[in-house]
């Protein structure tokens, strides 16, 4: 048995599934993450002198079904041209037959990390941007099905990106649904009874594998769960405002019909909360309404009150 130096052992561990890209335009630098389907590497595009992200199917998943899923994810990303979706540069096959795709390298914080460092209103504005992206996807017939804080990145300049569309479903909803031009037989590749998603962020119908019930409201449930997680994470989030609790409770209703019917309506509720007006999900008690109105119009109310006090004092003093 030949002695194998430590350096060789380390090298073999590294290259056992190291992607061998065709040509010498791209140099793979290091692995930066691993998801359910693929490993993501930081790579350098020598021709354009920029860094990119390379997602490669994990070796142990190199079956036609998983290859099809990764290819499908790349196609979905490529079709969803939106600032909240990572742009894909190319898709291809490695020498060992594995599917890969190149995309923009995203630098930033995960939403849950971001939430711990910002105010409630900043966190809510980030969630509104997520809603914009998800709403855009829904309008193009795509349901994400795996929305969660770790799949949302906040860039250095405040850009909000929704990642990991690997288990997205092409639902064909909406008048302006765009066909994704997927190869025949791959339009829906999730068998009934299959459970895909993340516990805590998937609704009951998804958790039991009821594929036929999965639609836009599946993502709305996840957005409600994200709202709850993010509000709890912001500094002082241990006693959240009741209207916000009502919003996420409606979004996370067990029955799909009881949830917000569209992401746009969920966004509108969040916007109402940020603007300090009543939200539909919450019937406000009188005293709370007074407190909210006072909070929103504090300065003019104080000015009027001060004016009235001065006026009263003036009248009283003149009467003496």
């Amino acid at each position, binding site marked *: *048995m*030949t*002695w*194998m*130096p*430590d*350096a*060789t*052992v380390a*090298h*073999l*561990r590294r*290259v*056992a*599934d*190291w992607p*061998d890209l*065709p040509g*010498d335009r791209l140099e793979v630098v290091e*692995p*930066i*993450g*691993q*998801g*359910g*389907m693929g*490993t993501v590497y930081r790579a350098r595009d020598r021709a354009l002198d920029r860094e990119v992200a390379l997602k490669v199917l994990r*070796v*142990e*998943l190199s079956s036609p079904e998983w290859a099809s899923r990764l290819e499908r994810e790349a196609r979905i990303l490529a079709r969803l041209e939106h600032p909240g979706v990572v742009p894909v540069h190319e898709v291809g096959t*490695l*020498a*060992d037959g594995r599917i890969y795709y190149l995309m923009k390298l995203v630098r930033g914080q995960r939403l849950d990390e971001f939430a711990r460092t910002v105010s409630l209103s900043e966190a809510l504005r980030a969630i509104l941007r997520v809603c914009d992206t998800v709403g855009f996807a829904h309008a193009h017939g795509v349901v994400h099905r*795996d929305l969660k804080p770790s799949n949302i990145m906040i860039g250095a300049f405040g850009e909000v990106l929704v990642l*990991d569309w*690997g*288990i997205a479903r092409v639902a064909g909803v909406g008048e302006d649904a765009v066909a994704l031009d997927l190869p025949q037989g791959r339009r829906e590749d*999730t*068998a009934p*009874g*299959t*459970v*895909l*998603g*993340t*516990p805590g962020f998937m609704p009951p119908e998804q958790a039991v*594998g009821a594929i036929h019930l999965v639609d836009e409201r599946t993502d709305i449930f996840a957005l409600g769960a994200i709202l709850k997680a993010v509000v709890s994470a912001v500094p002082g989030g241990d006693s959240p405002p009741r209207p916000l609790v009502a919003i996420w409770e409606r979004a996370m209703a067990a029955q799909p019909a009881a949830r917000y019917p569209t992401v746009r309506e969920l966004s509108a509720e969040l916007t109402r909360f940020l603007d300090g007006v009543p939200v539909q999900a919450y019937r406000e008690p009188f005293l709370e309404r007074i407190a909210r109105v006072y909070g929103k119009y504090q300065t003019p109310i104080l000015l009027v009150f001060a004016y009235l006090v001065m006026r009263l004092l003036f009248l009283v003093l003149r009467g003496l």
Partner: protein
Amino acid sequence: MTSLPDGTRVFPTTRPSVVEAVAGADADARSRAFATLVAVYWRPAYLHLRLKWRLEREDAEDLTQEFFARAMAQGFFEKYDPARARFRTFLRSCLDHLTANTRRDERRLKRGGGAAHLPLDFAGAEQDLALAGPPAADDPDALFHREWVRSLFTLAVESLRAECEASGRSVRYQVFARSDLDPVEGRPRPSYRELAEEFELPVTQVTNHLAWARREFRRVVLERLRELSGSEEEYRIEARELFGVTPP
């Protein structure tokens, strides 16, 4: 991380577990399984005795022989419970237990010790020890693990070489060995272009050969790992530790 569909096996199912076979009723299967365990574990066990227990070379040789002989004769491995520990941890505990008992009983470690001699290359292991430099005395467990990985990889490379020779694919192995196995200290590994010139092959064929050999190497390692694991869970954890990446 995204959940996998029900029923999807993350890693390949291969031959039955050596850990189960070594405690089984079939004498032939037990003997083959025992040989596999010795092949993978004798060197980590020997180096563990030398470095953790600081035994002299001859004593470590004798105790290594005695350990495996007793394990076979007295059925040490039949007591293994996958729910309690990884097999690797269990085996090391057995070795530590035997060593501690030997010391406590103040029995001298007699050379030979009456145990049947296994053909183990202790001289080679001593050379390895010298090449490895000063031992990481602060973490003998890490040393045992490192030597176990080395044994696993070495056996996988041997298996890959034999497979390539038997199937007329020696060039593939040679490209792999030249690229990934040759010592790298002091000089960079050859580029694909340099390998292509050396083997008089197109660059694309070099990358194809390497991709194939690396995939096969990984497959062989995972097969062997599965054999050596006490449970599916242990196998998955070990496989991730060997080839996985750490999420950011």
